[in-house]
């Protein structure tokens, strides 16, 4: 019989194994394993170690969220490892330091794992020459049409040419000509002459989207990117390929020739097309939105977003936006008014409403702050409330079945039923029975929910806030023009309970005004709430009042948002 001599398992979390490498002479400790493109632990690569050391290694084909291809050769670096004696033990220098044997061959930093005491050199003449060489090769057959290229200004070929390239070309031959203005799919144009064949787009659509639609044909320098014959490149994520294309080969039909990128102001914002809450940057100039591009957020969308969400901005600039404060004239017809008068009238009307005679239909497209204020009003008025669900089809990547950006917020505030819209039949019944005499609608078209126009006409008051005209806004007694998210600040809570903020990119149209401002004034009049001191104060007050937001402040949200502290009851 033998007794076990194995040591008992160590208590506590396993220690992160690390190793020391030197990048351009500076020692740095890096973990042995780092997340690969799928987030799985894999041996730390040279490029990751260099990044940790604050050293940028130029690259085209490498993308942290895509499988490594190693084809551009821009990230070639020189390196050395401890020299070993015949006894396989490291040889020491006279001063006791490790003797380093420099590798005779360079390595691609994107695919080569680091090893203990490795030295990586990124500034040697050899590295400089390799970068120059690669850039020269990439440029010889490039059309050099930057003045008419949409990528200009955010083009890696331009940037690296300035940083690492040569000024003059010695190319004395005819360039290779390839297809131009290729209609790759409904949303993309491909210029094969600009393509540097890095294969990022191919890997993205194959490995991230699961749609193996792109590939190379021909051979050698004649290699040409193309889509599967007879099948346009059309999935809901195609435009991400234009983002990750390091050059101007893939350009968005929507953005093509619209604006030079250096004129664009970039505002951190969120996508409002579903409950995922993809982080994005609004590119705008002079109060006009030109594009959305995804903004990296590991906790939400990685660095991708869907095409549907990305292109869903045109409505912000629509000509028929509601831009006037309006009241229905006692004798019929509209009367254009101003905010003080409109808010005074609405406050008076609501103050007069008997408890239980008010119904409030909110929108899960409104911000947490707005929904919070509405919930305070609803409590004061004893109103029956709910929000309108927008069910859709989820996909395997980012699109969520809940097409409202803030259903979670509406539920956490107690405004919306679970499931969303469960109270709507009761509200409808109240309207029909005459029990509900005042209807407050924010951002929804109630006629689409089965509320007949005649029913609205019977009510004491129909108070509507919206951005775009609808049958409901036409029937409103009081019309409060609201703002698109791009025109205000606020927060949404996504389906997973992450609270994220967005910033103002463009000015509101006409008299349109952020709803949270309007609601602050109504809440002051009706509930006696004070002035919050801007959106920050409002958020912080909300966080104090609503348990789920405990511990959060506007500033703590940062750029990436924060999770609600309470578990969110699942929506069936």
């Amino acid at each position, binding site marked *: 019989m033998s007794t076990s001599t194995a040591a008992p398992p160590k208590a506590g979390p396993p220690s992160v194994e690390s190793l020391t490498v030197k990048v351009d002479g500076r020692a740095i400790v890096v973990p042995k394993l780092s997340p690969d493109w799928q987030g799985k632990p894999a041996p730390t690569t040279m490029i990751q170690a260099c990044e940790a050391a604050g050293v940028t290694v130029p690259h085209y084909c490498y993308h942290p969220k895509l499988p490594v291809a190693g084809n551009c050769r821009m990230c070639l670096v020189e390196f050395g490892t401890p020299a070993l004696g015949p006894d396989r033990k490291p040889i020491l220098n006279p001063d006791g330091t490790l003797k380093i044997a420099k590798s005779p061959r360079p390595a691609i930093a994107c695919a080569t794992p680091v090893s203990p005491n490795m030295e990586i050199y990124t500034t040697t003449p050899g590295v400089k020459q*390799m970068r120059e060489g690669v850039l020269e090769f990439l440029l010889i057959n490039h059309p050099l049409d930057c003045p008419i290229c949409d990528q200009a200004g955010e083009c890696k070929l331009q940037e690296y040419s300035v940083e690492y390239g040569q000024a003059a070309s010695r190319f004395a031959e005819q360039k290779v000509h390839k297809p131009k203005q290729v209609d790759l799919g409904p949303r993309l144009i491909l210029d094969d002459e600009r393509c540097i064949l890095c294969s990022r787009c191919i890997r993205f659509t194959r490995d991230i989207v699961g749609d193996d639609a792109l590939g190379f044909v021909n051979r050698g320098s004649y290699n040409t990117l193309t889509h599967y014959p007879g099948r346009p490149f059309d999935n809901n994520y195609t435009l991400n390929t234009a983002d990750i294309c390091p050059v101007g080969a893939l350009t968005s039909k929507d953005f093509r020739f619209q604006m030079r990128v250096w004129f664009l102001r970039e505002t951190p914002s969120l996508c409002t097309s579903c409950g995922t809450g993809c982080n994005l940057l609004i590119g705008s100039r002079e109060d006009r939105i030109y594009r959305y591009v995804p903004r990296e957020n590991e906790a939400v969308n990685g660095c991708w977003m869907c095409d549907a969400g990305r292109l869903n901005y045109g409505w912000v600039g629509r000509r028929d936006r509601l831009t006037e404060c309006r009241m229905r004239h006692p004798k019929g017809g509209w009367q254009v008014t101003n905010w003080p008068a409109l808010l005074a009238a609405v406050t008076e009307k609501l103050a007069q409403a008997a408890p239980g005679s008010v119904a409030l239909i909110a929108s899960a497209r409104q911000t947490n702050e707005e929904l919070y204020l509405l919930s305070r009003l609803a409590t004061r008025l004893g109103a029956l409330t709910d929000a309108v669900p927008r069910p859709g089809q989820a996909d395997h990547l980012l699109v969520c079945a809940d097409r409202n950006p803030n259903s979670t917020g509406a539920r956490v505030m107690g405004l919306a039923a679970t499931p969303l819209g469960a109270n709507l039949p009761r509200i409808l019944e109240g309207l029909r029975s005459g029990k509900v005499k005042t209807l407050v609608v924010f951002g929804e078209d109630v006629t689409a929910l089965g509320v007949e126009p005649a029913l609205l006409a019977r009510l004491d008051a129909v108070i509507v806030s919206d951005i775009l005209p609808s049958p409901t806004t036409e029937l409103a007694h009081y019309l409060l023009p609201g703002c698109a998210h791009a025109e205000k600040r606020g927060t949404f809570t996504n389906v997973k309970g992450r609270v994220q903020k967005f910033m103002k990119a463009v000015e509101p149209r006409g008299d349109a005004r952020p709803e949270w401002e309007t609601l602050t004034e109504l809440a002051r009049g009706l509930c006696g709430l004070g002035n919050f001191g801007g959106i920050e104060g409002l958020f912080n007050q909300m966080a104090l009042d609503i348990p789920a937001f405990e511990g959060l402040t506007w500033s703590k949200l940062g750029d990436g948002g924060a999770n609600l502290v309470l578990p969110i009851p699942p929506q069936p």
Partner: protein
Amino acid sequence: MPAEFRLILKHADEPGYTPDLECYLRHDGYAALKKAVALAPKTLPDGKTLRPQEQLRQEVMNSGLRGRGGAGFSCGLKWSFVDRRSGKPVYLICNADESEPGTFKDRQIIHKDPHQLLEGMILSCWANDVHLAYIYIRGEMPGGARLLNQALAEARGAGLLGKNVLGTGYDLEIYVHRGAGAYICGEETGLIESLEGRRAYPRIKPPYFPAVLGLYQCPTIVNNVETLCAVKHIALMGGAAYAKLGTPNNTGTRIVSISGHVNRPGYYEVEVGRVTLGELILDPAFGGGLRPGRKLKAVIPGGSSAKVFKAGERFKIKRKGADGKETLVELDLLNLPYDFDTLIAAGSMSGSGALIVMDDTTDIVAALANIAEFYAHESCGQCTPCREGSLWMAKALRRLTSGQGRREDAEYLAKIADNIPGGRTICAFGEACSWPVQSFVAKFKEDFVARGVADEERRAKAGAGPSTTLKLAASPQS
């Protein structure tokens, strides 16, 4: 007197020798296999037992056999790298994608003695516990593929292949896979990609070393046709006896393909290192010398990607004596022993064993243009330096051979070529396409400069303007 030493090609060219099983068996075929599977486990002094399979692997290691495909890497070492602990199946692939210009040795074996290859493969598979193997044959060799399939059917019928090989309980299946006509499929990881059904883009190493992550991400051995045939002979005669053939570290025999301006172009099997380059070119037993009145101008010693030698070159080569001491020997080109190490020391390589001989009637610029055209056409285009550099050099040489040369073109070509090799590319194609240019331009610079100067002068006379205003040669594919 130098002479051929026919080991692998022993019977291939005998009158009446046919590629069928019956003939092979009549010539002691599959004796090596029968001998190997009958081996008993061996007990070592330290008490460990060596399985028969391990014994054969040890014999291959002892034989010093080096790969006959081009790189000359130790076969035993390659086998020792195989990850046998992964729990994944181990695959073996016979690389029969012989396509290095100047090389025509593997096809002799395939066409004339296919069962020898199968025996070598079955042995190698058995030694490495491989149960599924492929012969990746060049698409341009349909006859070879047909013969191999015929041989495989015969072997299956005779119980040499399939379930329960020779009643040993060992199962092995071998399939022939035809390529679709790309040189790069001869690069082992490109071959694997192609076999998996994709474009033959060579894989990055790390992490995709075939011995660990090869075919279907499983450990994989890729060996050349001739290498696998040598395994048969090692199994038969033993590693030590095989190592006595040839010279130390350059053991065994190899088939040399001689082409170009010689009287007797053809394939000759020799003991490695026992014959000099000069003998291979000039001896009546081999190349048989140049045609009357011709003088040697250049030799490419190991397939078109090897660096060229210029007639009259002299080399100082380190030689290890029997006592382990290194001595410096001065040798001229024709006295270089044709082996792996000497040719590397002389700045080139024996590569695929293809000797391309050029006499003094050769237009060296046109010869290089021809080679460059081949590599530009065959570059897979995956990684930047090779993709762009190979065609750039070919275009420059196209220009230089069509009357549009410039005096600076030699310099220009060398600078392009210098940016391609040395680990800048994913696979060795970068070296393959740039070494010819580097060596031709360096060793025959005067030919290139003279061509450029002549073109410039002719254009100036014709009033074509300065050299910078070039009438560019049209690219045939664009």
